[in-house]
């Protein structure tokens, strides 16, 4: 009966949307580095840590106000305690363990025993409690028992909590952790040197009347100070034999010091690319909108150069050399295969909201088909544009879900035709499109603000601004009207196609958007 009740409660909690939402919120706040409010929480906790240390320092030689002590000993400790409990809560799901065990038992036709999930719950929670980070969290709460003076020093453990909130410290730790075997070897080597030299110096110096080394502790202290190349000079060997030991320790100290430095540098060098990639991924996930270019080459370079004037552009390429080239050209590029769903997951790209369009600009139709199909498999709506290298691949790219195809060879044919037919007209239009001589062709959107002042084409007075109105694109009818009559009604979302000097276009735009112009 009690067991059934327990399973029912577990199911009810596990299926509760409110519970899931609350747990998810705390998970994001405490553990998800991409959650937008996490940084505010982290800053708040860092401030608490520093204020705690400042109070401790002040307390050493001065009288600290009772309210500050209360804040330090109770308020901060309680906040840390709540945080500790929340972390313990989100570290694993108790209800899930109970449900899994009950389903497992039911499947095998066995009777549900409560002690099995209980054992598992205790195991996972204990695993969390004994993790380094959790131990630091727990020690940081201890100053709550401030009546024990020694325990006040545990405030310093709060500083270690910074590991949780400062990303750069986390990066440093991960770099060092990557070389833990080497560091361990070094530690063993240094320990042996310290042990041997301490014993030797003690044996050589302890019985000499002028020697300041009289205990084994002083011998160990001297060894550590010497091997670390610090050498305070408060204890020095006075016997010939003792000095020989000193030479040995000094040389070993230089070796240990150099080895440590080279280990740290190597660890950073090896992880540098990864660290840079992580930083870029973080930055990309924060972008509001960008174009995603898949495949870097000559066309991609030109497109990225032009688009990056007004938008953010991210380049993906599976070839490391092309990524390096893109970075050298000044673009944000990542070495991930654009044809793999995993790439988009790792990059945490939100296709629906962040990406304006996918541009498949690889010089291989095979790669472009693969990329387009990959993207289409998880997003049906995103706009995909691709270059077409061979006419035979046209249908394959269309089938893969590409919205717009650019076939360079076909383009050349059409341009050649215009060149020989009406070269001057073609050049003139080309000059406008390329924004040469300060003349541009632009689309101007009619919005509610424009409509509040202008109702029809005849009212906009484009000629006054030396602007040609080529036509109007009627959004509702999805139709382009060339040279529209003055009586043509303006509607929300319509687009004016205008040609003019860039500065005059800006003035004209300001004029249209200025409320009560007319």
């Amino acid at each position, binding site marked *: 009966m009690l067991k059934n009740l327990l399973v029912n409660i577990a199911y009810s909690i596990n299926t509760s949307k409110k519970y899931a939402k609350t747990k998810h919120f705390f998970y994001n706040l405490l553990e998800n580095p991409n959650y937008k409010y996490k940084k505010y929480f982290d800053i708040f906790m860092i401030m608490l840590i520093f204020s705690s240390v400042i109070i401790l320092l002040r307390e050493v030689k001065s009288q600290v106000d009772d309210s500050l002590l209360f804040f330090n000993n109770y308020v901060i400790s309680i906040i840390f305690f709540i945080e500790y409990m929340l972390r313990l809560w989100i570290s694993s799901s108790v209800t899930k363990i109970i449900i899994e065990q009950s389903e497992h038992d039911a499947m095998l036709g066995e009777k549900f025993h409560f002690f099995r999930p209980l054992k598992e719950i205790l195991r996972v929670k204990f695993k969390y409690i004994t993790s380094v980070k959790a131990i630091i969290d727990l020690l940081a709460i201890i100053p709550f028992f401030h009546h024990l003076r020694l325990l006040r020093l545990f405030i310093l453990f709060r500083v270690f909590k910074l590991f949780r909130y400062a990303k750069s410290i986390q990066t440093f730790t991960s770099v060092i952790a990557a070389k833990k075997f080497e560091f361990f070897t070094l530690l063993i080597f240094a320990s042996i040197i310290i042990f041997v030299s301490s014993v030797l110096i003690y044996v050589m110096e302890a019985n000499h009347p002028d020697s300041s080394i009289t205990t084994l502790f002083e011998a160990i202290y001297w060894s550590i100070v010497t091997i670390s190349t610090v050498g305070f000079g408060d204890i020095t060997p006075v016997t010939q034999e003792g000095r020989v030991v000193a030479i040995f320790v000094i040389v070993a100290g230089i070796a240990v010091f150099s080895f440590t430095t080279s280990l740290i540098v190597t660890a950073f060098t090896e992880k540098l690319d990864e660290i840079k990639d992580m930083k870029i991924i973080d930055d990309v996930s924060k972008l509001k909108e960008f174009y995603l270019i898949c495949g870097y080459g000559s066309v991609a370079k*030109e497109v990225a150069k032009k688009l990056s004037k007004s938008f953010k552009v991210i380049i993906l390429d599976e070839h490391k050399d092309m990524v390096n080239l893109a970075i050298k050209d000044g673009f944000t590029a990542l070495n991930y295969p654009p044809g793999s769903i995993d790439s988009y997951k790792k990059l945490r790209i939100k296709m629906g909201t962040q990406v304006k369009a996918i541009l498949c*600009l690889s010089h291989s139709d095979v790669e472009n088909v693969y990329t387009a199909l990959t993207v289409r498999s998880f997003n049906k709506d995103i706009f995909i544009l691709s270059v077409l290298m061979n006419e035979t691949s046209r249908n394959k790219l269309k089938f893969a879900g590409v919205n717009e195809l650019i076939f360079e060879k076909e383009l*050349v*044919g059409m341009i050649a035709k215009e*060149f020989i*037919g*009406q070269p001057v007209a073609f050049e003139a*239009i080309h000059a406008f499109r390329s924004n040469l001589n300060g003349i541009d062709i632009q689309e101007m959107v009619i919005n509610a603000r424009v409509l509040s002042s202008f109702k029809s084409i005849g009212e906009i007075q484009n000629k006054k601004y030396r602007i040609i109105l*080529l036509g109007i694109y009627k959004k509702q009818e999805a139709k382009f009207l060339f040279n529209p009559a003055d009586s043509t009604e303006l509607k929300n979302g319509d687009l004016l196609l205008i040609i003019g000097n860039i500065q005059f276009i800006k003035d004209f735009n300001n004029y249209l958007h200025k409320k009560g112009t007319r």
Partner: protein
Amino acid sequence: MKHKNALVFGYNEYAFEIVKNITSSYKNIHIFKLEENTSVVDKKNTTYEVSSFDLTDNWDEIEEKINIDECVAFCTLEDMAENIFLTISLRDSFKDLSIIALAKDKESATKLKLAGASRVVPLTQTTANVIVEMLEKPIVTEVLHSILYEQSDLQIAQIKVENYHLFKEKYPAEIDWSKEHGIIVVSVVGENDFTEFIYSAKAKHHPIKNGDIFIVVGYEKDIINFEKIIGSRCE
């Protein structure tokens, strides 16, 4: 049309696309294949005469068969060094020949210009421009594409002024072309071949004269009517 013959140098997809597009504009189209490419056999252009050439040719053979004054040459070799060499070679032999050359990038485009090409199509830049325009100004791209490349009612034309007296020393920007003729004059090409936007300072101070060329956009019938009034179509 001034030119009757088209000489297409190169036997590749670019050449085939050019041939496909210019077929209706030329009486004769001659395709020239670089001798190294003998392994390439394509049935697409069996309707045209395919001759071979090599870069050391002095073009005597062509000159004997074809009237070069009536020709336009398209240099479409994929190797840029060869294409530049071909352009220089043609220009060296034929001073007045119209040469349209394909360039892979800006660097090759500059070299082809220096080599004497009349017009250069930079492939990378052109493709990139079209892609960017398609993303940033989709409607402009669609409209201009239909005006420039497709068989639509809306057209672009070069009209030469032959009846300047109709305008009584007026300036192009003073006249409301769209209301009077249903067309839009976008640019004016005056003496010394300057091409200016109709509202530019230079065009504003240039009274309409015989020989000026108007670049107009409009429906075919309006352009024909306009052409009848002011002069003739200039191609």
